[in-house]
């Protein structure tokens, strides 16, 4: 299920403005890759190009290649909608659909696409996804309550359940814990370590300890200068990045000398 991502020579533009310059990397299946870097360095922008979510922003476009197990997601005959089904995403702020119950939120990916599910099938997906998101025990007695009735951390796990319910092969997480308290953060981090058994996970985080705790590989992004595009400075095994990075910039960032 989990797929490898190969990015080569990717540039991201907003109109004429070059936001991210020339990124190439390989993201292994069944691993957690963390993107770190200071604010505005383009790591979230880059993350969104991995499932073509950037196209929602008017004027945003990319040059370069992103291969999902040898398949170019930017090939002319590929439908971005199809890509997003394959590459799920979890956002910074928990965003369950306010009009739907917990149950309906989990199967939203099917319901919104007008896919009919048998009741037994739907029940099974809901339970499997909520178990997968470590939320089943907490909500199994109130599945018909609105999704917004949960706490922030629970809502975020509900969003993860919603994302894995459609069985993607890759899961992108854009600062998934930044709006959560420490205990909820811990729950999500535990969940991430479990999820990597089945999924390719890419996570953007501002929290270096978090990157160190959950990721196998860490990529450091930085601005090439004020007003210049963001760049991938270094990517490598998390241990190595945090103990003996190759680039001076990375070391400065890790040791807290800037950013």
């Amino acid at each position, binding site marked *: 299920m989990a797929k490898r991502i190969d990015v080569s020579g990717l540039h991201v533009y907003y109109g004429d403005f070059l936001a991210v310059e020339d990124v190439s990397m390989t993201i292994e299946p069944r691993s957690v890759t963390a993107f770190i870097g200071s604010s505005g360095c383009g790591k979230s922008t880059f993350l969104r190009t991995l*499932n073509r*979510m950037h196209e*929602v922003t*008017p004027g945003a476009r990319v040059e370069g290649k992103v291969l999902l197990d040898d398949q170019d997601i930017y090939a002319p005959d590929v439908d971005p*909608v*199809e*890509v*997003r*089904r*394959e590459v*799920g*995403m979890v*956002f910074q*702020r928990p*965003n*369950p*659909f*306010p*009009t739907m119950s917990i149950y309906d939120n989990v199967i*939203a*990916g099917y*319901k*919104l*696409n*007008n896919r009919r599910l048998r009741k037994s099938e739907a029940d099974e997906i809901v339970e499997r996804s909520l178990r997968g998101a470590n939320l089943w025990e907490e909500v199994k007695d109130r599945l018909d*309550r*609105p999704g*917004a*009735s949960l706490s922030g951390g629970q809502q975020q796990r509900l*969003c993860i359940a*919603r*994302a894995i319910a*459609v069985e993607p092969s890759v899961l992108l997480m854009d600062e998934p814990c930044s709006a959560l308290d420490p205990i909820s953060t811990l729950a999500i981090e535990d969940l991430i370590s479990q999820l990597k058994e089945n999924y390719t996970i890419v996570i953007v985080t501002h929290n270096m300890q978090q990157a160190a705790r959950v990721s196998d590989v860490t990529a450091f992004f930085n601005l090439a200068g004020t007003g210049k595009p963001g760049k991938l400075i270094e990517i490598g095994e998390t241990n190595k990045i945090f103990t003996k990075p190759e680039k001076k910039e990375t070391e400065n960032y890790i040791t807290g000398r800037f950013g």
Partner: protein
Amino acid sequence: MSATKLSAPEKTVPPRPLAPSLGAKPLPALFPPTLLAGVALVAAGLLYALGWWNPAVWAIVTAVGYMVLITAASALIENRRKAKDRLVTAIVYTCFGIAMVPLVSLLWTVLSKGLVRLDGYFLTVSMNGVTPSMDAGGAYHAILGTLLMTLMAALISVPIGLMTAIYLVEYGQGRLKRAITFFVDVMTGIPSIVAGLFVVALWILLFGPGKTNGAAGAISLSVLMIPVVVRSCEEMLRLVPNELREASYALGVPKWLTVVKVVLPTAIAGLTTGVMLALARVIGETAPLILTAGSSAVAINANLFEGQMMSLPVFIYSQVRMGGVINYERAWAGALTLIIIVMLLFLAARLVSHFFAPKTR
């Protein structure tokens, strides 16, 4: 895009004088209301003594007297700046009082005069075969006409208005979007009589002169209703957080399904409220209906496409034009009915926004 809603500002507290030793001793808090009551009493007594008693004159004398005295008192005891502030405060309160006069008097007169004739009989019979001064007849035909024409206007305006709002919020960009936004604003300002004339001109072109029917009335109403619907729907759609759209896209849902199944249901309470308020606005329109649906129908007509159709506002107007005592009674009863319908729409809008709003518990 985040929903930026301005919260009511903090009530600004006038700054405490920094140095009371400078002689600026503030007036006690109870001084203004006491002064006002005093002035009101004195003015009432004075007017009675002079035999000029009249509530309006009394209110004016009280307001002016209070303004003069509070300014003088403040100027003597506090200082001139404070005095000016107190004068403006009095003026601002008076402005609000002035606005309440027509509202209260209008509601009171309509209620007291309307109740004379508003009963089951009035609501269930038409004016068919009733001569103007006969002590009989009712507004059933007008109520029916109003409901039918407003309903048809809604059926035309809501889809067009909602789809345009969706275009402006979800799809539109560039010059077309700006043009539509601008002209919707302009359209909000079309005088209602001009909307009526438009349909008259259109009808002459399509069916020849002199054709009046309910459908023409409904179309003229929708010309007035569409821009209101667009405006309010647009506002409501913009309140839907972008995060929900993104969540839907990230699940591999195409844009149009995202709009239909995520954006619209999330905004449904606001959308319905907006439509109800738009209905409340056009249901009282008179001028275009005089031109398009006729002003002389007296019988029940449930066919929008054939013959003149009476409506409540036109009913009120034509009764006033006849001018007799009973005609005025009918007009007041009609006005009360109309206000009740409008209030019901307002109430329904409130209830809808209360019950349809996304639940959090």
